[in-house]
């Protein structure tokens, strides 16, 4: 008989005029993985923050093990056994695993003696408990992403957590790393813990979760058994409308070669002898495992790394690209992977963000022309479907998907001939994802040459005309658009594994 660990009922939360949650109810049983699903801005993060005590709800009640809880705060929630593991583990990189675990769990006091031996033992026990093969004396910066997440889980277990929240834990993991993490999650479930699991990847949710709660516009659309509704049913619940299952029109008529790389090599970032051409109107997908050297290649093309050898030809002319401004002048645009760190300026208006890379074109003479800037921003908002109150709103008022569109809008405003997209839909919900795919195809149809780096194989297959696969800094395969996921994977892994 499963017992209810956590019960939320009628939770409401407003931020100013925005109602983030409108009476959400949610329950978590001992020994289950309960997935939380919803588009960006549906209220998942807010709900999580309420459970971890980072936000106070405006209304509703929280019951833990049958006891009604008063106002929570993060420290109190932790003592109650609620732990949250974020996408980016919050560990001290220069300390060892044991020190990190010790720091979290030990009672603090400036003059308390550190129990080095006990700390190490404790770490060992905890890591064994989750079956992680990590040495306690290793420094955290040496660990891979899932290993770091496991250290986080070990911390949570050490703190006697009964409820573990995982916020998109697999976003930057390779498939093999995912399996490792899943094994641990399944073990936690067998041990009777409650796990709240947030992810945008539906196949993970089917593979892992017992029940799924779908949030839409701050309301719960219902809790279902994952297997009972199927992928289509879940997507439909998330977006509230039937989605044409990734049937994107690819009408590629090959144009002239716009971008050509000949034996491009860069010792510093590990790029080896890459030759590639991209034609006008073509989308070349770039697949590969994390760390295969795809972002590094993009960085060379955008002047962020200097090639040691080889040539870059733009429109047939050999070109030297020494800085991003050179790249912009050549008509190359790069929408970086981490939009929050390198993409949009959160404190600036949407229109300033959009015009930022095209000052030369929009404002010849260096004099800002507000009307022209406004016009450009309005066009982006219209064409990319950015959901906002207007071009003067600050970028930090937008949801993740819409920020991504602003980043894209900035680069489209430069009227590029070559567009490099790095993980264009990472952390973006299903609805916005499909929109972005359509936009990419439309841009190609308008004659742009597009290089799309993506770790999402269905996305690569759905959007690309050709698929380039990289491995360890080399271009190892060039596959046609109808390649299967298995074929791509095999190339990315160097054949032997599959």
């Amino acid at each position, binding site marked *: 008989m499963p017992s209810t660990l956590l019960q939320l009922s009628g939770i409401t939360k407003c931020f100013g005029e925005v109602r983030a949650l409108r009476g959400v109810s949610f329950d978590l049983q001992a020994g289950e993985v309960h997935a939380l699903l919803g588009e960006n801005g549906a209220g998942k993060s807010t709900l999580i923050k309420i459970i971890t005590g980072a936000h106070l709800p405006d209304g509703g009640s929280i019951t833990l093990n049958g006891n009604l809880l008063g106002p929570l705060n993060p420290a109190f929630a932790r003592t109650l056994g609620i732990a949250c593991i974020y996408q980016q583990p919050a560990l001290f990189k220069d300390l060892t695993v044991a020190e990190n675990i010790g720091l979290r769990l030990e009672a603090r006091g400036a003059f308390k003696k550190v129990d080095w031996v006990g700390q190490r033992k404790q770490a060992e026990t905890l890591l064994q408990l989750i079956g992680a093969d990590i040495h306690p004396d290793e420094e955290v910066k040496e660990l891979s992403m899932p290993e770091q997440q496991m250290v986080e889980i070990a911390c949570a277990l050490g703190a006697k957590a009964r409820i573990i929240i995982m916020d998109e834990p697999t976003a930057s993991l390779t498939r093999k790393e995912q399996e490792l993490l899943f094994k641990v999650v399944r073990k936690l479930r067998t041990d009777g813990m409650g796990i709240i699991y947030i992810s945008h990847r539906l196949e993970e949710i089917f593979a892992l979760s017992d029940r799924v709660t779908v949030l839409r516009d701050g309301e719960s659309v219902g809790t279902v058994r994952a297997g009972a509704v199927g992928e289509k049913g879940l997507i439909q619940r998330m977006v509230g409308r039937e989605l044409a299952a990734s049937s994107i029109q690819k009408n590629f008529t090959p144009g002239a070669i716009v971008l050509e790389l000949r034996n491009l090599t860069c010792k510093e970032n590990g790029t080896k002898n890459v030759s590639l051409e991209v034609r006008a109107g073509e989308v070349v997908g770039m697949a590969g495992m994390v760390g295969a050297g795809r972002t590094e290649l993009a960085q060379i093309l955008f002047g962020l790394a200097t090639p040691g050898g080889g040539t870059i030809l733009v429109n047939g002319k050999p070109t030297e690209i020494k800085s991003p401004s050179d790249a912009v002048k050549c008509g190359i645009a790069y929408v970086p992977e981490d939009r929050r760190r390198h993409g949009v*300026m959160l404190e600036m208006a949407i229109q300033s963000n959009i015009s*930022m890379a095209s000052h030369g074109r929009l404002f010849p003479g260096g004099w800002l022309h507000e009307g022209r800037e406004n016009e450009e921003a309005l066009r982006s908002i219209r064409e990319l479907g950015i959901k906002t109150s207007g071009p003067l709103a600050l970028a930090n008022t937008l949801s993740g998907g819409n920020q991504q569109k602003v980043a894209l809008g900035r680069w489209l405003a430069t009227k590029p001939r070559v567009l490099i997209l790095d993980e264009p839909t990472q952390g973006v919900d299903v609805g916005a994802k499909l929109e972005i795919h359509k936009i990419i195809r439309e841009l190609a149809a308008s004659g742009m040459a597009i290089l799309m780096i993506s770790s999402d194989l269905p996305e690569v297959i759905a959007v690309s005309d050709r698929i380039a696969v990289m491995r360890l800094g080399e271009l190892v395969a060039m596959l046609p658009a109808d390649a299967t996921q298995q074929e791509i994977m095999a190339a990315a892994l160097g054949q032997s594994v599959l």
Partner: protein
Amino acid sequence: MKASKTIKNASRFSREITLGIGLLIILATLAVVAPGFYQAQPLLSLLTREAPSLIVACGMAWVIICRQIDISVGSQFGLCSVCAGLLAGMHWPIALVGICAMALGALLGWVNGFLVAGLRLPSIVVTLATMVTLREGLRWKRQGEFVTLPDTVQWFGFSQQQGQVTIIVVSLLVLIILAVTARHLSLARDIYAVGSDAEAARLAGIPALRITCFVFVLLGALTGLAAILNMAQAPQVDPKTGTGLELKAIAAVVVGGVSISGGRGSLWGVFLGLLLLACISPALTHLHVEAYWERAIHGGIILIAVAGDRFKQGKENS
């Protein structure tokens, strides 16, 4: 729709409005308690005295908006003053002396900018080093000796009143030009962008390092100009002139609402901030409070300003 827009604008200029109200309160108090404050000549002298600081503060505002800092302006000011004084002593025309002082300031700024942007050194350390080096170098060279100026230099050869008006007009012109530029030049937008996130700006194709270097050069050139406006107010140049100017400028910038973490702020705020701080001293005199309190009150205002920023940001972030 229109009302909400007005409110939005009001919140955008909240710092300027608060400062304006604070200034009005002080001025109104003085009008009631000490009408003597409002005599034309002392008031004119007060504004003339503050004019060079205003110009330096404007330059400093750009440096801080770009998320850098320059604490060597006081020493730059001193060096520019002494060199300008020597040139003026050789009977160079004052306009040429002014250009030379600005060029020297720009060069000193470029050295800072090169060390910060070119070698990626932290600006606080770089400018601390140049501050000490320039100041001590000047002391060693001049041995504390004053530079005596020819008569034609004081008040640019005008009468005192005309000279004072000229100085005030020039400094206000600089303020207006820079404030208008801040809103309408794409270069200014780039500076804000670099200050709010240098890496993101670089990825947007903005030459972030060149812009960082540029703000130091601009501050240096403005410091040179300020040195000339200061020099014209006295018959000789003290080689110690400009000591403490960096703190005054930074205080005005911070009180004026420029975010010390870069990317935010306006020059109008800096103007009001400087006026507010400048009014404190005569206000104290007229209210018969001991002048020792001036610095303490300045410190208090700076703390309130920074705390106000924090509070505002905290509210936006939650």
